[in-house]
Each structure stands twice: as structure tokens, then as C-alpha cells.
């Protein structure tokens, strides 16, 4: 097998990001603490470069396979990567001040963040079980370290330890499931597996056995019930900048992961995994929404809200149709945009030595700063699924797909749990508008953060009023890639 430059062209963004990350890692050693912002700017520049490369090489045509069929460049991967760059850049801008004030504005933070991004890119364009797993490990290892970054915090150490052990267990399960599928079909290539399973190759007992382990591994990584125990602890214990990253960017990779595994590789077993996903989805919507009501910590509440949202995301996937996959993709993008804003707001209200992560810190926000209170109102409405925000349209699209797939009762259940969930989102709105402020410090975020927060909040509204463009992008990407 010979390599030519043409084999490397589809993976140009990955190669560029790896080179840039290594450069930043070394370059940072020669900077004094006073000039650390150069690293920050270089990190943003690396993401911008990746964005340009991905955008320039994106094609609407057929998927390109390279590296012995282990890497795929299709419209789905191109679109998801572009959203990923924007998300990671937003995470960086939101967390700049926060990191400064907590002594975490260090070169390693940016390097690990970029390595995690690289891992997600590998996952997004994986077309073999092997690369899918390698990307996942690259992402997870960077995340374990990022969570533990705040060394003096016992909470962060505990969160990192739990995340590490449960993550390793989940990886083990996933690998075991993958090895069963490999044993039954004799290949690791996702496209090949899809074709072989369509043709009826493989012992059905072994396939079902492997599928159970794969779905359990996916459920662990997505954080859906009953494999959700790590989510609240990690969200609460991690520094908010890392929580923002875990809560938003990784969901994009998780979506790609599920699509590549279930919708591309094991689509012939859809009848089996649909039933498993129904159970996972109903359980997570129930546990997420009901437990979130009892929380007094904002980060913990948003963690349970994530569990519920991931359950909703699975609804779209279990429809197992183009409509379903594209609505799930729309849902994940909508969730990422909204999640960025809500975790960003916690960092915006925090200051040196003070973490605005309790519900009562939001009391009377309207009197302190009506603009931020309005933006938070939009974000909470979007999470709850109140029109005319993007969250409403996302839920509507998923429910439509589920109805079309013939699961009417499931749609009814989902709506009921969304109603329960609306209670705790609206409680925040009530705290902001109808209670007297407890904390009376000035809110003085930097200009870049103010602008981004404004854009983010208004995007939730604008995309909710005009969702058609984003929806058709998602549909087109899914249709051309599957």
C-alpha cells in the first residue's frame, strides 16, 4: 500500500490541528505568565484554521474514504466539525476570564482542550470500530485530566476519579461488544459490517450479545439513565469552564458516535436496539426531569437536565428514519447552543473566589441587570421548549419523527415529562424576576464575553423563529451521508 498526498487531503483539518496543538504546547513553554494570552489567541487561531480547511474541503458529493477505509469524509462529518469548531471557540471565549481568576489560565489547559477536540474530530469521521474507539479514548483521557485540573478542590478530584473509573468501565463494555460484532462478522469496518449484516451474516445470538454491550457503553458515554450516575457529580465538581466543554462540545461527538455505530454499522439490527433505546430514553426523561426539581445547585440541576435532554435525543435516533436522525442532529445542535449560554451565564456571574452556581445566586437578576436576566429567560425557555425559541422547534421535530415511526405513546410520555421539566426551568425565571437580589455585586464581564452572550441568547431566539435553514442543513447532511 502506497500513500500519496491525495490520501491525506480529506484529513487535512485533523493533521493541521495536531501540528498546531504540538506547536502551541511547545511555544507556551517560552512564554511568561504575563504573556499567556498569546497561547489563548493561538488556540483560537488553530480552530479558525481548522474551520477554514474544513469549509474549503467540504463537498456535497459522495463520502471519501481514506487510510484503508478507517477515515471517512462526508457531509455529516464536515457539518458536525464546523459546529464543533464554533462550539469550542465559544467555550474558550466564555472561560477566558474565569480561568484567569482561578489560576487555571495555563498552557496545558489549552493543549488538552485541543487534544480533546482532535479526539472528537476523529470520532466524527471514524468509519471503523478501531478509530471510533481511539477517538473516544483520546477525548476521554483529555477530559479526565481537565476535570482534575483544579488541584486544590476536593470536589474536582472526586469528580475526576468517578469519571475515570466509570469511563474506563464503559470503554471496557464497549470494546467487549465491539469484539463480539467482530467475532460474528469478521471485520471492523463500519460500512462492511452494515453490508454483511444486511446480507444476514453472523450468528444472531452473538450479535444480540454484542449489541447489548455496545448500547450499554453508548448509554454510559451519553450519560442516560440508568448509566447516568457520573453526570451530576462531574458537572458539579469540574471547573465551570470544563463543565461547559463537557456539557456542549462532547454531545456533538456523542451524536456522531451513536449515528456511526447504530445507524451506519448496526442498522440491520434496528429492531433490537430500538427497544433498548425506548427503555433508556423513557428512564432518562423520568429520572432527569424529576430529580432536577430537587436540586439547589445550578450546575447539578443543569446536569440532570442534560440527562433528560439526552433521553429526548435518543427518541430521534430510535425512530431509525432519515427524519429521526436529522431531527436528532437538529436537537443536539439546539442543545449545544442553549447549553453554551446557560453554563456561560454561570461563569459570567461568577467572580474571583465566588461561584454563582446556586439557584439563589440568580435571585433578582432582573434588578441587577435586566439584559442578562432577559437572555437567561430566553435560554431557560429554550431548555424547557417554550415557543418561539429553538428548543421548542427541536422538541417538535423529534416528536414528529417519533410519531411517524409509530410510537405515539412514546411521544405522549415525552411531552408529559417535558411538562414536568418546565417547572424547574420556569422556577429560575421566577427567581430572576420576582425575588429580591441577595447578591448585590456589580456584574462586569469583559467585552468579548458580553458580545458572545448577546449573540448566543439572540441566536436561540432567531433560530427558533427561523429554524428552516438549520433544519434543511441537518436533513441534507444526514441524507447525503447515510
Amino acid at each position, binding site marked *: *500500500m502506497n500513500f500519496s498526498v491525495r490520501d491525506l487531503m480529506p484529513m487535512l483539518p485533523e493533521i493541521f490541528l495536531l501540528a498546531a496543538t*504540538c506547536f502551541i504546547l511547545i511555544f507556551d513553554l517560552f512564554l511568561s505568565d504575563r504573556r499567556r494570552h498569546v497561547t489563548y489567541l493561538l488556540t483560537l487561531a488553530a480552530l479558525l484554521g481548522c474551520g477554514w480547511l474544513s469549509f474549503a474541503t467540504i463537498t456535497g458529493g459522495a463520502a471519501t474514504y481514506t487510510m484503508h477505509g478507517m*477515515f471517512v469524509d462526508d457531509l455529516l462529518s464536515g457539518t458536525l466539525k464546523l459546529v464543533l469548531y464554533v462550539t469550542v471557540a465559544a467555550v474558550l471565549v466564555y472561560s477566558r476570564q474565569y480561568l484567569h481568576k482561578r489560576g487555571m489560565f495555563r498552557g496545558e489547559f489549552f493543549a488538552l482542550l485541543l487534544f480533546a477536540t482532535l479526539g472528537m474530530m476523529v470520532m466524527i469521521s471514524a468509519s471503523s470500530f478501531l478509530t471510533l474507539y481511539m477517538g473516544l479514548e*483520546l477525548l476521554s483521557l*483529555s477530559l479526565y485530566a481537565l476535570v482534575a485540573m483544579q488541584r486544590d478542590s476536593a470536589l474536582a478530584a472526586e469528580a475526576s476519579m468517578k469519571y475515570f473509573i466509570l469511563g474506563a468501565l464503559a470503554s471496557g463494555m464497549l470494546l467487549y461488544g465491539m469484539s463480539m460484532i467482530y467475532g460474528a462478522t469478521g471485520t471492523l469496518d463500519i460500512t462492511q459490517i452494515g453490508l454483511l449484516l444486511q446480507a444476514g451474516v453472523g450468528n444472531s445470538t452473538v450479535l444480540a450479545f454484542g449489541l447489548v454491550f455496545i448500547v450499554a457503553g453508548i448509554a454510559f458515554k451519553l450519560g442516560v439513565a440508568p448509566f447516568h450516575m457520573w453526570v451530576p457529580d462531574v458537572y458539579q465538581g469540574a471547573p465551570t469552564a470544563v463543565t461547559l466543554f463537557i456539557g456542549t462540545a462532547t454531545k456533538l461527538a456523542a451524536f456522531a458516535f451513536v449515528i456511526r455505530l447504530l445507524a451506519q454499522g448496526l442498522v440491520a439490527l434496528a429492531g433490537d436496539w430500538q427497544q433498548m433505546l425506548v427503555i433508556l430514553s423513557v428512564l432518562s426523561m423520568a429520572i432527569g426531569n424529576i430529580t432536577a426539581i430537587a436540586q439547589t445547585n445550578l450546575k447539578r440541576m443543569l446536569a440532570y437536565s442534560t440527562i433528560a435532554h439526552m433521553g429526548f435525543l435518543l427518541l430521534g435516533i430510535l425512530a431509525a428514519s432519515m427524519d429521526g436522525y436529522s431531527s436528532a442532529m437538529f436537537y443536539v445542535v439546539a442543545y449545544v447552543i442553549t447549553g453554551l449560554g446557560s453554563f456561560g451565564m454561570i461563569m459570567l456571574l461568577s467572580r474571583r473566589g465566588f461561584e454563582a452556581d446556586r439557584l439563589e445566586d440568580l435571585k433578582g437578576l432582573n434588578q441587577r441587570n435586566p439584559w442578562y436576566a432577559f437572555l437567561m429567560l430566553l435560554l431557560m425557555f429554550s431548555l424547557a421548549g417554550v415557543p418561539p425559541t429553538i428548543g421548542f422547534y427541536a422538541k417538535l421535530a423529534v416528536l414528529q419523527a417519533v410519531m411517524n415511526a409509530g410510537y405515539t405513546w412514546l411521544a405522549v410520555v415525552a411531552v408529559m415529562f417535558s411538562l414536568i421539566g418546565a417547572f424547574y426551568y420556569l422556577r429560575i425565571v421566577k427567581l430572576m424576576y420576582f425575588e429580591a437580589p441577595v447578591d448585590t455585586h456589580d456584574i462586569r464581564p469583559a467585552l468579548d464575553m458580553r458580545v458572545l452572550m448577546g449573540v448566543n441568547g439572540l441566536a436561540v431566539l432567531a433560530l427558533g423563529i427561523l429554524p428552516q435553514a438549520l433544519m434543511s442543513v441537518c436533513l441534507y447532511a444526514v441524507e447525503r451521508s447515510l
Partner: protein
Amino acid sequence: MNFLTGVFYMLSVILLFAGFRVVTTRNPVHAALFLVLAFFSAAGIWLTLEAEFLAIALVMVYVGAVMVLFLFVVMMLDINLDRLREGFWQYLPLAGFVSAMLALEMTVVLGSRTFGLSIVPSPQPHPAGYSNTRELGRLLYTDYVYPFELAAVILVVAIVAAIALTMRRRKNTRYQDPARQVKVKREQRVRMMQMPAEKPSSTKT
């Protein structure tokens, strides 16, 4: 039963015995040594499968590096054995039940019906002069070069993460500057002193 089958059964019995002793022996140093024996027998089984490179890599990496580190850790840490064994009998029924169920499920699914010789035939023996090492190297650097490079990136992340989590720069730490050490002149280190010779005093005052 030919000679290779006999070797396989002998190595398997040793492997199972060693694995069992790793869990049951009381002394952690003995447990580590039994683990070495287990690795060694496993390497022997791989040799009978014509995977000589993997067998030698297993011995070199696990026995040579990992287990030596393990032994160091076991010897250096003061492990309280009684505390480790607390609740052993209490958890034994549950652990035994879980293991038995796992073993049962695996025999049901992975029996000869699904992975027997009729479904997965044994591979043809390789001709003389076939190099397992060469084939592995060829595959790693051609077909599997992408995952191979990814594994390298994962190792870089491990190094960066380990340093980021453990390095703490204290204010009063003294550092060496190799460049200045190299540039040092004799005059900066050695001072020639002129002292009058002292006479040994014979009597104490």
C-alpha cells in the same frame, strides 16, 4: 494428541493455577510473582500460535517493565493486608454469583455452536521462513497507520496530563541553569588561598 497440544494443555494448566494463586495468596509480593508466571505461560501459548513477536513483547513489556514497577510499588508502599481483606467473606457470595452468571452467559453464547471450528476454521500453518514480526510491522505502518498514530497522540496526552496534574512550581525551589553551569570559570568556583603554615600545637592551653 500431538506434541503441540500437549504443550498447550501444560501451559494452560500453569496459567490457570498462577491466575488462581494471584487472587488467593496472602502475600502481595507472591501475588505479583505469580502474575509474572501467568504472563510467561500466556506468552508460551502465543508462541504455539506462531505469534512469536507478541509473545516476546508480552514478556518484555509486562514481565520486564510493568511487573518490576508493580513489585517496586508493592515493596515501597506499606500496605495493610488486614484492611484490604476486610469484608472479603461478606462480598464473596455476591461476587461468586456475578462471576458464575457471567461464565454461564459466556458459555451459552460463545460455545462451539457459534465459534466452533466449522464456523471459524483454524488458519493454515505458515511456510518456513515466514516472519511474524515483519508482517506485523508491515501492517502497522501501512493499513493501520492511522490508529497507530492516534495511539501515539494518546500517549502524548497521557504525558501532558500527568505533568499538568502533578507539577507544582514552588516559590522557593532552587533551579539549576545548565547553560550557566557550563559557562562557569575556574575563578568562580575555586579560590586560591594563601595561609601561613600552622605548627602542630603540642600542648593544649
